[in-house]
């Protein structure tokens, strides 16, 4: 059942991403991006990241995608779908993307394949130690179930919070604690960054007043 739901979300995500990357119509691409974001939120839920799934829905679907659709509507003339393609650009992009995909697939599929074998050269050895069964024992189902809870319990021992039910406890409480303890400085820095970027965006996008409008404003005030 878990596998079936995972594959459903994966198909939604990947199909949406393909339409986003390949669709000639920019509005179709935006709507396909909506499905991609929903599928990714589902994948987050499958990976026990419920807070992040809600954040994904709120910020990506509710914020960034709306912003992108506004950008589409403000810049694209309706009825004139621009399908011009630069000469040879499609092939260059396709070949580079395919090559990159092959490299990535070989990288992470090979790393799991080699962790039972012996790595001779140093480069192989780092890969094998990265994917060794001691650091990534995802095949051990007991570790798999409550790894995060156990690590957190060791690190931030909280005896009053007994997490007996596996997987359903949620991560919001831990994330909130971490934001105010270990990640306090990044939290403040990212808030300043967000404020600066929003002020900068409004400064860039605002309409420059012409000289006559400035004169009128000065005479009124």
């Amino acid at each position, binding site marked *: 059942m*878990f596998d079936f739901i995972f594959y459903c979300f994966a198909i939604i995500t990947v199909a949406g991403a393909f339409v*986003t990357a390949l669709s000639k119509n920019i509005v179709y691409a935006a709507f396909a991006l909506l499905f*991609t974001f929903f599928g990714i939120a589902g994948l987050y839920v499958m990976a026990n*990241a419920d807070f992040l799934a809600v954040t994904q829905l709120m*910020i990506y679907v509710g914020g960034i995608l709306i912003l992108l659709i*506004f*950008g589409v509507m403000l810049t*694209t003339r309706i009825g004139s779908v621009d399908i011009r393609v630069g000469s040879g650009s499609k092939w260059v992009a396709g070949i580079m*993307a395919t090559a990159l995909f092959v490299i990535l697939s070989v990288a992470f599929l090979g790393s799991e394949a080699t962790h039972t074998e012996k790595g001779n050269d140093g480069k192989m050895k780092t890969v094998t130690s990265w994917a060794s069964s001691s650091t990534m024992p995802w095949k051990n189902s007991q570790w798999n179930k409550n790894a995060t809870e156990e690590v957190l319990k060791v690190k931030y021992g909280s005896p009053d919070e007994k997490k007996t039910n596996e997987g359903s406890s949620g991560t919001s409480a831990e*994330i909130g604690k971490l934001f105010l303890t270990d990640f306090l400085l990044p939290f403040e820095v990212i808030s300043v960054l967000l404020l600066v970027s929003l002020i900068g965006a409004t400064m860039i996008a605002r309409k420059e007043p012409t000289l006559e409008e400035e004169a009128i404003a000065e005479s009124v005030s």
Partner: protein
Amino acid sequence: MTIGLNHFLFIGAVLFVLGIFSMLYRRNVIAVLMGVELILNAANINFIAFSRYGGVNISGQMAAIFVIVVAAGEAAVALAIVLNIYKNFKSVNPAEVDTLRD
């Protein structure tokens, strides 16, 4: 075959590659920005996958939250720039915005 780390990494790789393709191929700045969002989501999927299966505990989710915040700021600033480009050039084709070129 049970769902493991490699399944998530595979989806992340597909999204990353499609984002790269979108950035290289598209002739509309908004579509290029959609490619950037796909790439950021691919990075987030990798963070979540390693936080679940890879021994990186909940710190992976924290990093993904920071990535989402940066993506929000990036989208806001980038769309403001795109609107200004459209106002000045009457085009959103990145190949036509070449005033500084000879």
